[in-house]
């Protein structure tokens, strides 16, 4: 669930209120991005984005993975279909990898 369905807000106020309580406003930003893990590969392997963007990793493999950028962020172990969102508040290059399968690497460039 990357973004809220805006039409849903108008149709069902109760649901919208519940969602508003549960999700911080930043989750709904239109420029938020997704990275999927498929076949032991981060896809896309490299992303360029603006400060304030949230990237959400989703593990679509049958094997658990992690998302780790030394000293910057570390997900818990993601089982199948688990997600890890991280909001980038500082510019810079973030190299990351899976600490269980270190040959899996990726890069986020934040400007």
């Amino acid at each position, binding site marked *: 669930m990357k973004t809220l369905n805006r039409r849903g807000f108008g149709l069902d106020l109760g649901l919208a209120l519940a969602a508003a309580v549960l999700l911080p406003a930043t989750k709904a930003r239109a420029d938020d991005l997704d990275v999927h893990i498929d076949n032991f590969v981060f896809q896309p392997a490299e992303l360029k984005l603006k400060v304030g963007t949230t990237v959400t990793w989703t593990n679509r*493999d*049958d094997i*658990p993975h992690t998302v780790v950028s030394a000293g910057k962020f570390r997900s818990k*172990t993601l089982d199948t279909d688990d997600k890890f969102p991280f909001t980038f508040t500082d510019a810079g290059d973030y*190299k990351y*990898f899976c600490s269980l399968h270190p040959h899996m690497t990726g890069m986020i460039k934040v400007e």
Partner: protein
Amino acid sequence: MSGHEHGDDGVSRRKVLECMTWAGTGVLWTITGGVPRSLGIIDSAQAATTAAPGMSFLQISDSHVGFDKPANPNALGTLEEAVGKINAMPAKPSFMIHTGDITHLSKAAEFDNAERIIAQTKLDVHYVPGEHDFIDEEVKLYRERYGRGTKGHGWYSFDAGGVHFIGLVNVVDLKAGGLGNLGAEQLAWLDDDLRGKSKSTPIVLFAHIPLWTVYPEWGWGTEDGGRALEQVKGFGSVTVLNGHIHQVMQKVEGNVTFHTARSTAFPQPAPGSAPSPGPMKVEDAKLRSMLGVASVNFKQNEQRLAIIDTPLQG
């Protein structure tokens, strides 16, 4: 399945390689004076008579208790089947080693379930951790259960039947872009552990990830594994056992025999034969032929070590 006896008086390297290609059905290996020989394909009943007397131990690996995906929805069930196989062996092995990935997600209940089933063998079990056993945040559960008396992240050695066994941990502190990792502290300990040992002492090294480079593209190897192998090079007989890749694979290099065991949970593809090393879904009827255990026999005074892979079925 005993139609391929090489006899005892030597066998060409070509023949050895030929046998390696059948490893999936169960091949008996012996080492005499550092020369590996295949005695041909046998079943476990014959193995018991061929290999006795002497010490034998069993290797079990990659139980992945908790795994429930299509490649095998019941990993606990197939572990139980493997234990049934072990209990039915005509000659009881002296003990068992487990080369890691006992659990899938390092959950307490997974460790409990694995323990409950494996205990039914009534065998002593020597463990090393796989990366799946170190998933809990503080890496507590494996260490509390199996880490007593071990050094560092869980390495140790012991002697049995005249063989020196060394359990290594290569799933900690993995570096981006890299392979398995032993680390300087463990390598220094290994150096200490081997110091003063007679070069004729047979050595068995066991770890989760292969210590040799099987397929770096999938992380199947250990960054500093070569440094461990360097330290055992002078010994007359060295056997390196591991799991992690969920398939039988062997290599012989000088006095060193490398052998990987099957998983009891799910098969993985041959190197490079699939988009990823993930669990391989095969026909239900075929699954049990791709899971199993390995037994290793050691004949006293003869420096003979024989490895027999036994699938759960077929």
